[in-house]
């Protein structure tokens, strides 16, 4: 009796769930599954190999990690175009810092890792202060710092490769733990933390509120300026992490590395359902968006699609993914 009741309630719950299933609420998930199936077919049989999947995850983790921070900025109503330059800048300065220590010192690697994260956060703080204290539109402020960061690292390095003298440093970026590359672990960890921050903390709710309507948020006694500032610092933090992971992968960094990261990071967030007008978005959506971008690239190469047409295919998938969301909203 009890058993059948439970079964029945489960069945109704299931029916209720599917009865209320709205494509708009799950557009990213549906798009993700469709794309995964498409990639499996186009890239058969190599796409499904474990190594290929971890390759994809590692390839997207660099821009993915930044995309997670970017999601918070976009939700708060801002944008950060400087992340690519910031990553190269932070990576380069970090290697200069690392090279202050002689030999293969473990301590140097640990200190440099912390240095990268702190330095990135400071760059992010700088952006945030320009936007909040300087009251410059985020697009303009970060367009400015984008050039500043890039130009500074080219100046300091003479536009040449910045090589590290510490062989242990390379173990971070090219390391593998439980068959999963280190950058992927970091990506997952940051995603989980920021997911909790966005959904289960007061700060997360305030970010949404400020992005949705700044005036109303101000009248609700939210410290709008502080709430707008913190996402930039978080994004700087994620750029610092990426700088650490990328510069240690090859144990060197080129000042022209990481160009275009901002576009991939923004694309990941938008594909993942984050609204460019602010107020709404999800960290897990961005994770899926970033992975989708990686799957597209991988599938096109595996499928032997003309290299001239690959960018078009990529653009098409981005547009379709976003159409799927917006057309179902109203």
């Amino acid at each position: 009796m009890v058993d059948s009741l439970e079964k029945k309630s489960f069945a109704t719950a299931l029916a209720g769930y599917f009865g209320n299933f709205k494509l708009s609420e799950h557009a990213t998930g549906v798009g993700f599954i469709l794309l995964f199936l498409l990639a499996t077919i186009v890239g058969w049989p190599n796409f499904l190999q474990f190594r290929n999947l971890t390759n994809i995850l590692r390839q997207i983790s660099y821009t993915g990690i930044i995309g997670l921070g970017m999601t918070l900025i976009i939700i708060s109503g801002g944008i950060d175009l400087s992340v690519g330059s910031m990553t190269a800048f932070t990576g380069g300065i970090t290697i200069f810092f690392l090279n202050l220590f002689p030999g293969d010192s473990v301590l140097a690697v640990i200190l440099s890792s912390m240095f990268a994260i702190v330095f990135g956060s400071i760059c992010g703080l700088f952006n945030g202060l320009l936007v909040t204290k300087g009251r410059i539109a985020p697009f303009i402020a970060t367009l400015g710092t984008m050039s500043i960061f890039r130009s500074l690292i080219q100046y300091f390095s003479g536009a040449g490769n910045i090589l590290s003298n510490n062989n242990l440093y390379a173990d971070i970026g090219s390391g593998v733990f439980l068959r999963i590359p280190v950058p992927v672990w970091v990506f997952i960890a940051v995603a989980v933390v920021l997911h909790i921050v966005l959904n289960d903390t007061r700060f997360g709710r305030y970010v949404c509120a400020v992005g949705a309507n700044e005036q109303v948020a101000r009248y609700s006694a939210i410290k709008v300026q502080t709430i707008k500032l913190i996402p930039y610092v978080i994004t700087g933090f994620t750029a610092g992490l990426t700088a650490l992971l990328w510069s240690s992968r090859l144990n060197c960094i080129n000042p022209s590395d990481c160009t275009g990261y901002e576009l991939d990071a923004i694309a990941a967030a938008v594909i993942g359902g984050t609204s460019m007008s602010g107020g709404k978005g999800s960290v897990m959506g961005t994770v899926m968006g970033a992975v989708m971008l990686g799957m597209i690239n991988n599938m096109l190469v595996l499928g032997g699609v003309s290299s001239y047409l690959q960018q078009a295919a990529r653009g098409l998938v981005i547009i379709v993914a976003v159409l799927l969301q917006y057309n179902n909203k109203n």
Partner: protein
Amino acid sequence: MRKVALVVLIVLMTVMPLFAQGGKESAVTKIGVSIPSADHGWTGGIVWWAEKAVNDVKAEMPGRFEFRVVTADNPSSQVRNVEDLLVWGMDYLVILPHESAPLTPIVKEVHTQGVRIIVVDRGLTDTSFGYVNLAGDNTGLGRLSGAWLAKTMKAEGLKNYVAMGGLPVTIDTERMNAFFAEMDKDPSLVNLLGKDKYEFADWSTQKGLSLMETFLQQYPKIDAVFCQDDDVLTGVLQAIKESGRKDIKVALGGAGSKVVYKMIMDGNPLVRATATYHPSMIADGIHYIVDVATGKKPDDFHLANKPTSMVIPSVMVDKTNVAQFYEPDSIY
């Protein structure tokens, strides 16, 4: 307060250059150098070699020349740079154009003002007026790379190869076509991507790395990789190293970076050669114009009704001759 600060800043920026230039009118020859900004390793090399040539000339003949080296990150800002150099009153222009077509009109205008011009690397689309074109040898890079790779693969009984290009632009197509022309001569060599097919690595280390990861996944046996550029090669080698695969026997880049010269010198088993397309060509251009200005070379090219073309030939660098190309201080 902010407004006041802004106004002061603008005034300063307008006035400062006036002071900087004031009272310098004399017999010094003004040479403008317009180059792309350092957006990847090779253009980084261009900037470095331009600065080096300028400093060398200044040290050799102090006070004789005044230089302005300006960089641009896209063709339209390069046009603006050249306009600025014209206002500055340059007597000579050394230019490495971003793209030929958009820069041609402004260079022609500069020519009508009597400025002697050297165009380095790629030419202009208008060839009806007189300038020196010191051209890089893209076809040569592709041809030498193809011939070397075909010969090496043949000698070692290797068969399967994959190929990467840069970006879909003219110079890239010239390189790849010349490369495949050589490779196709030997029907026993198999391009795993299909005849004359290749993927774009954007002349970027990161793109080369992820492309190679995908190739390694896709093809169980690869004997050789041609990736056309030494920056891309860094990424390719990293992917091979991380995969632990031992089947790849040859990896060939191109252009001639310091890092790759060092690998060749040290006897790297995978990296044994590279075809030059070296950023030092901008230094050749600057030294050429200095020779013209000091009368060591004729300047009648200016009056001709077609450009004087000179090609800086691509050279295959391997263990036998690498020592004469290696420049430890260069950044590229």
